Each structure stands twice: as C-alpha cells, then as structure tokens.
C-alpha cells in the first residue's frame, strides 16, 4: 500500500515537475494525462464482468425505438406495447427459470428514426450494456439495420415491427418476428376478389387489378405478394404505377384507373399513401368495386375525413381487437384493448399489440429453455408454438411467424369491421363498393 502511494507520488511529481513541462511542453502534459486515463479505462473495463444480462432477479432486455423523428408516433406505440407487457408479466409473477422468479426490465435508447443510429445503439446495447436479449425497433428499415449486428454477436432478437420479406430470406438465425411478413398484407384481398368474382358467376381470371405502391422496401414487398396472387389466379394487371415518395399527389395514377376501370385497386404507401389515396379518390370520384390498402388504421381514415370519404376501404392489418385469440396474461384481444386503453388513454393500434406479444414470446422461451444461455434460449425460441391474444405464433426457419394470417377489415359506418379471414370475421364484406353517385 505504502509502496503504491509512493509510486503515485512519484508519478505525479514526474507529471508536473518534468523538465519538459518547464520548457513549456503543455502538450506533453496532456499526452501523459491521456495515457494515464487510457490505462485506467482499460483496467476498469477488465475489472467489470463482461455480461450484465441478468442482474439479481431481473432479466434485462435491450431495445432501440424511435422516440423522435419521423417514426416517433409508431415508436411510441411500440414502447407502450413493450411496457404494458413487462408490467403485466411482472405483476403475474414474472418468468420462472430454474425454479426462481425473475422480472423483466428493458433498456431503451432513442434511435431518432435513423438507420445508422439504430445500428450504433444496437452495438452499444450489446457491447457496453451487456444486453444478451434484444427486442426489435419500429419499422422494417430499422430492423434491417439492427439484424446484422445481433446476428454478428449471436444475440437473439424477437422483433415485432419489421415485416419486410427480405428480413426472412437472409438466413438469419437469431431473428424472430411475431408479425406476418409484408408480402402477406394484401394477398388475402386479391384472393377475396377472386372468390367474389366466382360467386358473382364470373371467372377469377377476368378480374382486372390496378396497383399503386410506393418505392420503399415495405410497399414493394406488399406488391410482390399482390403480384403472386394475381398470377396464381391468372388475373390481369391494368395499371402498375409507383406512388411518389416525396409529394402527395397521385392524380395522374387515378386518371389512369378511371380510364381502365379495374375491379381491384391496391394501394400501399404508409400513412401518407393511405391519406392521399382516400382524399384524391373521393375528390376525383373514382369508382372501383374493391379498394384494398395498408395503413388505414395508422392513418385513421375512418375518422380523419368528413363525408365518410374512407368508407368501404378494405384494409390489411396485423391484428384487430375484435379477434377471438386469447392467452392467460392479457385474456382475449378485446381484454388487451381495454387494459391498454385504461393505461394509455387510446385504443391499441396493432403496432402496440404485436410489441406486447414479443414479450410473451420471450417469457415462454426462457421458461422452456430453463436457462439464460443465449444459445439455449435461441433454440427454444426457434421451436415456439403458442397462442397469444395477438394470434398464434410459430416461426419458420427464417424467423417469420407462419401461424398467423393477416386480417382484413373494411370501413363500415366509420368503424373498422373485420371481414377476413372469414373464420374470425365479425362482419360481412360489402362488395361491390357503391358508386360515388349513389352514396
């Protein structure tokens, strides 16, 4: 001890009374300080345990979500979903591993809706915070930015808001998504159009389809699904156009739709695309027997327009509160909706529901693995087969949930009424949509 103090003294004397210092070598002093700090930093980093995945009786999960920037609304929905599930699971006794009860806790960072930032934060969660179990961010783009990193460090990630098909074709081993892939969004609508055409005495192959999709990864995946369904039924595509990314104007596309009179108009371009489509279709009085879209619920098209401009639009959703799935934590989908509404004062969008489901998957996997070893937990995740209030969950080899179909709802009297899949449907599809002149 005495020796150490002596050495330190010597060091400090060396530092401040060195000859070079007297000759004005301020830079040398700075260099010395930096080198000492470096040595200290290295010593500290060796002293700390390498992983902080489970502290005491708490299992720590990490998540980068968009709390600011263009995804901030949906980022907040995601975080609320996570938080509600953490609270519900902890209140119900938490997670049992090795006969001991553990609680969930989540470390959040704000990724500012930026891909580079999300990737950086994933590195930080894994390397600095020692997180061993990850939750996904909001949006396909950000999930795509994080997935290579969790894969590199072999950290399992259960994500709830990245639907892009390309996430599941890269052979990722540590990525698990509770939601249906983007190409499934509007496939059901095309099948429904075929069904209706046959029921009306025609042929499925007579159906004409018009498409307007934005150029981003998600919307293009939705388009792949539509095109596959169209080919399967032998239908014809009469309009195939891209929604402008930067200006909300699709008047020229709708002019083409008016001229070609298709049986189905499929539109996907996030909330902005949904709003633009409804506004301009109603302004230009475009008559189509079936209008199939995505993001109607996020854009609240049943509430945001006067004169019911959004009426009869058919919308793809991951989940709806009127479905009859249930589990032992949240109860039915309707129970989840009321719990959520009392906690956050608004109806849960599907982004929150799927985020909550991700926590249920984690709990289930930990208990089946009965271990905190990331490899064992990963293997447990891979063989997940369960029902939650959000739907059935079972992962393909690529990590995609293949047990849950997409939901289609139609705006009827200003309400979102589920019309497909018919097994869980609460309402009948109104088809064909009445003409504008008859409304």
């Amino acid at each position, binding site marked *: 001890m005495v020796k150490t103090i002596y050495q330190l003294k010597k060091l400090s004397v060396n530092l401040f009374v060195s000859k070079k210092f007297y000759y004005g070598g301020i830079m040398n002093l700075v260099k010395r300080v930096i080198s000492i700090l470096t040595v200290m930093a290295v010593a500290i980093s060796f002293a700390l345990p390498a992983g902080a995945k489970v502290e005491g009786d708490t299992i720590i999960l990490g998540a980068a979500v968009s709390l600011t920037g263009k995804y901030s609304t949906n980022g907040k929905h995601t975080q609320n979903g996570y938080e509600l599930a953490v609270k519900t699971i902890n209140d119900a006794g938490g997670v049992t591993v090795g006969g001991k009860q553990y609680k969930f806790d989540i470390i959040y960072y704000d990724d500012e809706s930026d891909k580079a930032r999300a990737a950086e934060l994933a590195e930080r969660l894994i390397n600095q915070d020692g997180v061993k179990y990850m939750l996904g961010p909001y949006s396909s783009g950000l999930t795509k930015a994080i997935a290579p990193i969790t894969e590199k460090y072999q950290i399992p990630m259960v994500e709830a808001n990245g639907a892009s098909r390309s996430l599941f074709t890269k052979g990722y081993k540590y990525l698990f998504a509770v939601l249906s892939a983007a190409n499934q969004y509007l496939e059901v609508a095309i099948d429904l159009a075929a069904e209706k055409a046959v029921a009306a005495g025609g042929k499925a192959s007579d159906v004409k389809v018009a498409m307007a999709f934005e150029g981003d990864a998600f919307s293009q995946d939705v388009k792949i699904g539509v095109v596959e369904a169209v080919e399967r039924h032998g239908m014809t595509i009469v309009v195939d156009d891209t929604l402008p990314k930067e200006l*909300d104007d699709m008047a020229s596309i709708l002019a083409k739709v008016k001229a070609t009179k298709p049986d189905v108009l499929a539109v996907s371009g996030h909330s902005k695309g949904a709003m633009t489509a409804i506004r301009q279709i109603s302004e230009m009085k475009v008559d189509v027997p079936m209008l199939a879209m995505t993001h109607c619920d996020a854009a609240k098209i049943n509430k945001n327009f006067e004169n019911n401009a959004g009426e009869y639009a058919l919308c793809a959703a991951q989940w709806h509160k009127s479905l009859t799935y249930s589990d032992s934590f949240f109860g039915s989908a309707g129970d989840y909706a009321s719990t959520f509404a009392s906690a956050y004062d608004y109806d849960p969008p599907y982004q929150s529901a799927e985020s909550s489901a991700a926590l249920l998957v984690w709990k289930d996997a930990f208990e089946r693995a009965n271990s905190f070893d990331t490899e064992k937990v990963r293997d447990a995740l891979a063989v997940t087969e369960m029902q939650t209030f959000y739907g059935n969950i079972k992962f393909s080899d690529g990590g995609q949930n293949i047990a849950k179909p997409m939901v289609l709802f139609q705006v009827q009297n200003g309400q979102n009424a589920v019309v497909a899949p018919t097994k869980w449907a609460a309402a009948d599809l109104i088809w064909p949509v009445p003409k504008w002149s008859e409304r």
Partner: protein
Amino acid sequence: MIQALIDGIILGSIFALIAYGMALVWGVMNIINITQGELVILGGYVAFGLYKIGIHPLYGLIASPAVLFVVGWCLYYIVVNRVVEKDLFISILATFGLSIMIQQLMNIFFGADVQVAEASLGTSFLFDYNVTIPNIKIVAFVVSIISAGIIVLFMKLSKMGQAIRATAQNARAAKILGINTNHVYAITFGLNAAICGVAGAIVSMTFTLHPYIGLPYTIRSFMIVIVAGLGNLPAVIVSGVGLGVAEQYADFLFGTIFRLAFVFSLLVVILIWRSFRLSKKREYLK
C-alpha cells in the same frame, strides 16, 4: 389529358406562389431560403389547427399568413439578420439549420402523423364525369392568383414596397437615402413567410401535412426561381405552372417513378439551352 392539364395548372400555381416568395427573399436579401418548404407546412398546420378546433380551414387562408408573418419577422431578428450580409453559403447553412429545427418542433407539437384539413367543398365535373376538379383546387388557384396580385400591387404602390425594391436594387444606396434596411429585410422575410402561409393553408386542404414533407416544396420553388430568374413575376408564374403541367404529363406518360427525374432533366435542358443562347449573344457582342 385535359385532366392532367388542369391538375398541372393548379399544382403549378401553388408552386409559383411559393417560388415567388423565395425569389423575393433571394432578390432582396441575397439569401437562398431553405426553410421555404417548412414554412409552407407550418402554415398548413395553422389551418389544420383551426380545423381541429372547429373553424372552417378556409379561414386559414387569412390566419396562416398572419401567424406566419410574425414567425418570419421573429426568425429574421433571431437568426437571419446575423447572416444577411454574409456569404451566400453561410445563409444556406443557417436556413438549412432553421429548417431542421422547424421540422423537429412541428414533430413535437403536432406529432409525426399524417394530417389533412377537410374543406368539404365537393367536386365539379366536366365532360360527362370524365374530368373532375375538386372545388378546393379551384379555390387554391384563385387564391394563388389573388395573392400574387396583392403582392405586386403592394410592391408597386406602397411606400414599404418601394423601399423593398430600392433595397433590392442597391442596399447601400438605399441606406444612404434613409431607408432602414434592417427593417426592410425583416418585412421582406415576414412577407415571404406570409406567402408560404397562404400556400400552406392551401396544401393542408388539397394535399396532406407531415412535419417532414417540406423539402419537395423547397426544391421545386428553388428550381422555378432558377428557371425564371429573380424579380420577374410573370416568368415565375409561367415556369411554375409549366413545371406543374410538365410533372403531370410526365407522370401520365412515363409513370410516377420518373416524375422527379423528368423534372430535373428538364431543368438541365433549360440551363444548357440558356447558356447556349447567352454564348451566342456574347459572340454577337464581340
């Protein structure tokens, strides 16, 4: 085709209005105002705010410019007056910074959701339902023309307008003759913001609002000003409307995906043609 023409003219008239504001600031203050698009969206949010509290958004056509004038005035005294006589590059940086700040503030106050204000004015039909014109777009067109007219009259007749024009011609001389140029600049910047406010109110009723959608408006107004030149109102209107129509036709013929590509190729062609003409003129002078 007539549909595309009409849509284009109406869209172009909104662009022309925004571009005229940009030309004004550029010409008088020698500042390229990158915040233009954000001011438009902010104006839109004012109209949307009125709509939310139950007032018809058409009143936004009066309220937005009033609010935005004050905003522009404040922005001038807080930020822009520090860069107004500096290098063009510095003013671009400063207004770029402002635009990011306004975006983030709008995001905080209004949320990242896409919003619309509904004017519910119905739709007019031509040629047996084949051509449709939403009435709000007609209003937009008329309002754009009227506001342009008001600005021209203001510039020609009022004392302030004359002061603005004098400062644009020669700021130093104007100062010597007793014009408070700082005050003139503030009014000019406020006036531009007010123009953006009118355009924003129109945008909120015809298109959609989103905190991050200002940039397309900035880019287009920049382009129109480049083509039309500074301080040339008829040219701004012609190139604005021309741009709107060209975009609609490009959309219709080549598909929406080539819309921007087409617009920018057009810009390149116009610039090449212009430099070619200028060089010819130079030869002639030699």
